[in-house]
């Protein structure tokens, strides 16, 4: 530290100590209530015990952590050149992202394809991987709305719920199979996307977020209270499982039909169904991904991004903002609908409990932490956040703390998300730009 002080301004340790002290004070206020007291069951009823040691540990770690963070920041600032080369920074980001998507992308997909046949892939691992993939798919779906079109949607879980309930209800009332219901659920969700889209066309940013938040709650409350139709808080159970090209994944088949293990001459195992579901969500997620990659290069995809950048300029170029926004809402919702009906068939039971606001927040966090608009980034963020919290299951009550800590760490380290670089959808010079033509001195570039 001392060397760096010689040529530039010295680090003001007093200010840093003060800053850390204030952080520690805030931590103290929170820790006294949250950590300091614990209720315990005693034979005579409830009792409160105190845990002052833990309070001291919490406050001390906040103080030390904040101080270390601040010292690092200051020493970095005092050493940093005055002029930061943004171009070089952007190039470095581009190289990293390109490496990730050209090598990392196929590597991830390859790993995902062979995962169920790995020696360590037991029931639990495949189950968690399926769970993670649902969120990867939801993240990619929401990425269309938030990342590309720039419409901040806090009620995305509503479409997920619509998809899940439409499958469950179609199956219950009309006895339709999963494969018929999957597109229907997508259509239903897309319809609700348009329904939400209409009233919020004029809203932007925070205002839009509040309305979508309200919409998410409305759907949940309807599902909760329309007891005759949706089963209310009891939920819907006995949702049929999907079949593998007409082959049931059950121990015994219905009269005159074959099961999966009979057809392939395998011993019956419940793993078959889990692995089948895993591949199903993998295919659905990859479909979402390829769709998004492709539609980014379509005029509608470019119009979404343009709308995110400047709506007024879009109107001056003759782009219909209404249609453009509605298609973004509808397509984003459609993928949530697909994911929802998969969720329903996997769980075989759904209730409004599964579609609370926290789900929307987690999906949005995945998109933001991944780097808005970045497909690979979203996938990594989903694995980190959902898979990570599964890993931390051993921490029990501190699991959410780890979840929050992870989010803060990513945002401090990468404020614009893990992979925030955006590649142009079309290039004039795919092999690097030619040197500028020195015309300005003579003709000014005209004629």
């Amino acid at each position: 530290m001392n060397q760096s002080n010689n040529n530039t301004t010295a680090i003001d340790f007093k200010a840093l100590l003060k800053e850390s002290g204030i952080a520690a004070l805030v931590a103290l206020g929170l820790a006294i209530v949250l950590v300091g007291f614990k209720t315990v069951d005693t034979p005579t009823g409830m009792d409160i015990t105190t845990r002052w040691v833990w309070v001291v540990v919490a406050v001390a770690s906040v103080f030390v952590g904040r101080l270390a963070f601040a010292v690092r920041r200051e020493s970095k600032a005092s050493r940093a050149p005055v002029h930061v080369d943004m171009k070089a920074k952007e190039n470095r980001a581009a190289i990293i992202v390109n490496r990730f998507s050209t090598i990392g992308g196929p590597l991830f997909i390859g790993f995902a394809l062979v995962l169920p046949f790995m020696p360590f892939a037991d029931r639990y691992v495949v189950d968690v991987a399926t769970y993670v993939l649902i969120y990867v798919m939801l993240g990619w779906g929401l990425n269309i709305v938030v990342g590309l079109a720039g419409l901040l949607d806090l009620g995305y879980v509503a479409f997920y719920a619509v998809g899940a309930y439409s499958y469950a209800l179609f199956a219950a009332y009309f006895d339709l199979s999963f494969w018929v219901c999957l597109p229907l659920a997508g259509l239903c969700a897309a319809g609700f996307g348009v329904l939400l889209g209409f009233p919020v066309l004029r809203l932007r940013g925070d205002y839009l977020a509040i309305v979508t938040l309200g919409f998410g709650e409305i759907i949940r409350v309807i599902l909760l209270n329309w007891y005759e139709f949706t089963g209310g808080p009891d939920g819907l159970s006995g949702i049929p499982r999907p079949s593998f090209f007409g082959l049931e994944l059950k121990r015994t088949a219905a009269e005159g039909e074959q099961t999966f293990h009979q057809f392939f001459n395998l011993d019956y195992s419940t793993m078959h169904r889990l692995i089948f579901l895993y591949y199903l969500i993998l295919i659905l997620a990859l479909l979402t991904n390829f769709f998004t990659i492709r539609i980014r290069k379509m005029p509608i995809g470019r119009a979404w991004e343009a709308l995110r950048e400047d709506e007024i300029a879009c109107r001056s170029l003759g782009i219909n903002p209404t249609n453009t926004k509605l298609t973004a809402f509808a397509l984003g919702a459609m993928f949530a609908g697909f994911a929802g009906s998969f969720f329903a068939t996997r769980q075989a039971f759904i209730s409004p409990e599964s579609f609370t606001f926290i789900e929307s927040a987690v999906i949005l966090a995945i998109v933001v932490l991944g780097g808005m608009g970045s497909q690979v980034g979203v996938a990594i963020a989903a694995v980190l956040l959902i898979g990570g919290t599964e890993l931390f299951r051993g921490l029990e009550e501190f699991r959410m703390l780890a979840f929050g800590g992870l989010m803060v760490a990513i945002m401090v380290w990468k404020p614009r998300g893990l992979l925030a670089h955006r590649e142009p959808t079309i290039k004039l010079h795919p092999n690097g730009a030619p040197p500028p033509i020195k015309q300005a001195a003579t003709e000014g570039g005209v004629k």
Partner: protein
Amino acid sequence: MKEVSTTPPELVIPSGADPLLTVEHLTMRFGGLVAIDDVSFSAGKGEITAIIGPNGAGKTTLFNCITGFYTPTVGRLTLTARGEEYLLERMDGFRIAQKAHVARTFQNIRLFSEMSVLENLIVAQHNELMRASGFTVTGLFGLGGYRKKEKEAADLARYWLDKVNLTHLADINAGNLPYGDQRRLEIARAMCIKPTILCLDEPAAGLNPKESSELNKLLIYIKDEHDIGLLLIEHDMSVVMEISDHVVVLDYGSKISDGTPLYVRSDPNVIRAYLGEDEDEALPPEVAADIAKDFDPENREGV
């Protein structure tokens, strides 16, 4: 509306010979505030029509009415181009650009700054590309000649990039361009919608004299080669006097003068609006001298 004083006939432009845009009795009120009060004029094809006036005269409001960002309170805006007649005051904002091909730029540049320079120009051709991609359905599967159309769109973009001398910067983000380049890119983007009339809101603002003279060349090139009308709001009198064929002067929402640059410069109404009516309202002498210098034809060559 104030009466324009009697003028020598040879100095007034005979606009109406080939009118592209006709503005009749345009009035725009915001509550009690009258931003534009009964303004009528016409802009010809293959002509540069400059709209000048002191700050707050209603120039940008006029532009917003023409380009559909405001719906006028009273008045008719007729655009006659490519064998069609459009009544702009009856059209939705974005349809004016979509159907009547009225293009505009903005006083404070509005580019898609996180998108590349080339993408900015491709987005401008959205409606044509939308049709070519079968409203995304066929394009998504690579059917229906979308590839070919996209190539054509890139070629048009390339043409305009060459014209504004930005070809070597085509793949960097528009937001990373220097200010002068951003101004030129915005004009190129507006040209990519294949306009019938191009409305420029202070295109020379913030440009240095060299950039400003390049801009003049570009605008004259667009006028001559593409045979469209240009409508120009400008404060820089050297630009106005040098390139415009027709000048409309607004003050407090009313038209106070309309004619050739030569005529407008000597119109007592204009001089009064710019320099003040009497001593009490007069500008400080150094400002007045500055403005007078700007109007002086001998002086503008040096800029």
